[in-house]
């Protein structure tokens, strides 16, 4: 189906929505903070930066509060902003001096223990220039075998609405996601987790921000309206002698666009002192391309795309992180056991794309 054939949904972007979201978030955090203090209550403040080889810079402050109201119920509220400066490859064609954008998101998650089950119900609202996403999610888990086995499952539904910038037309995309996992304690030093994820996306799936060359004319892509995605994951956590921990993950992914990928990651963390944790992780990722992906097109192709994520490539990510949890009160201001988290990630793809991410985080027990 050609772009523009589908009846565009009526549109509109309310510029006040991000502020309304921020208001809802602040209110929710205030309500949470006003409640009684029981169980584990954590305030996480993180500041992420992302800079890539195209010159795009993203600054992302995130605040999330995880609070138990009673022994059986709790609430998690998360609020974040992505401030994007400079231009992406796509933006640069029309805005050679750069384009600024911003994404605001709020996530609220309510959890409750019902008998032997833990139930989580939540949602997420995300707003940015030319893109809106609303998600509702529910998950349930249960411990078995004296806590040595945990089974969990979840479902989420997302309505994503890209605006076909520079027009005012808005398209709809619907995503259903099903998730199951089994976590098993194998020994007093080993935990294994198996997970399966089924994701079905329908509706508009081209990127309105990425263009490809068809018969030497740059056009927005045209992709199939349906994509079913599956992923299986195996994760291992192994405690080694000497306060050292090993983390190994493998993911196999495949979908109905013939894109398949393998992801391996291996990490080691070591406590040099009880207050100082240092870790390093290596992640390798490789994918095949979607069956209709080509660098450029000629003739009269049914499907065509300029989405770089649908081409075959591989990548490597190197991550180093340090967590410092001083025994005394930090700066005489923050509570005991407040942790400072520093992390650096370097991502390098075979497409010559590279990026660096830096995170500064504070984990504050309340």
């Amino acid at each position, binding site marked *: 189906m050609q772009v523009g054939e589908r009846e565009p949904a009526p549109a509109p972007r309310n510029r006040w929505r991000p502020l309304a979201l921020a208001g809802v978030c602040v209110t929710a955090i205030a309500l949470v903070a006003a409640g009684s203090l029981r169980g584990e209550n954590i305030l996480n403040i993180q500041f*992420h930066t992302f800079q890539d080889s195209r010159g795009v810079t993203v600054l992302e402050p*995130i605040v*999330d509060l995880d609070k138990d109201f009673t022994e059986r119920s709790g609430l998690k509220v*998360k609020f974040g902003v992505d401030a994007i400066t400079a231009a992406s490859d796509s933006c640069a064609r029309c805005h050679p001096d750069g384009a600024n954008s911003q994404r605001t998101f709020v*996530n609220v998650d309510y959890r409750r223990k019902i008998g032997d089950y833990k139930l989580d119900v939540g949602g*997420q609202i995300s707003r*940015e220039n030319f*893109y809106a*996403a609303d*998600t509702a*999610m529910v998950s349930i888990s249960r411990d*078995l*075998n*004296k806590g*040595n086995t945990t089974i969990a499952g979840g*479902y989420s539904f997302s*309505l*994503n609405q890209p605006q076909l910038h520079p027009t005012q037309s808005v398209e709809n995309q619907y*995503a259903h*996601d099903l*998730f199951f996992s*089994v*976590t098993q*304690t*194998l*020994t*007093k030093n080993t*935990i*294994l987790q*198996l*997970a*399966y994820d089924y*994701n079905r996306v329908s509706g508009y799936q081209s*990127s309105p*921000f*990425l263009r490809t060359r068809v018969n030497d004319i740059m056009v927005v892509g045209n992709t199939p309206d349906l994509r079913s995605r*599956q*992923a*299986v*994951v*195996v994760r291992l*956590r192994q*405690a080694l002698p000497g306060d050292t921990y090993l983390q190994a993950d493998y*993911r196999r*992914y*495949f979908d109905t666009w013939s894109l*398949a*990928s393998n992801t391996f990651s291996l990490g080691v*963390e070591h406590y040099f002192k009880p207050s100082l*944790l240092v870790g390093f992780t290596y992640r390798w*990722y490789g*994918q095949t*391309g979607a069956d209709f992906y080509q660098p450029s097109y000629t003739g009269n192709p049914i499907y065509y795309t300029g989405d*770089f994520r649908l081409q075959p490539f591989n*990548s490597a990510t190197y991550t180093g992180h340090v967590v410092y949890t001083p025994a005394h009160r930090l700066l005489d201001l923050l509570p005991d056991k407040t942790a400072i*988290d520093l992390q650096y990630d370097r991502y390098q793809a075979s497409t010559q*794309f590279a*990026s660096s991410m830096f*995170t500064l*985080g504070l984990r504050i027990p309340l």
Partner: protein
Amino acid sequence: MTRTGRMVLLTLAALAVAMWTAGCATVQPWERARLANPCMVFDYNGGQADFASHWQSAREGSSGGFGVQGGGCGCK
């Protein structure tokens, strides 16, 4: 379902059975000291995991497998 998909699911099922069997060897609560360490908890730092998942899905064609997924974004 493709042959690869069937193989993966079969492997997953076999591993699940193996895990279930291994579960019979119960680790007692007083033996769980090291299991309680944050390094042994999957996605203990949820904020960092969410951030990584976000930028990876903006750069790579596959996603999922680490819990129910949220909505998309226009960050490309």
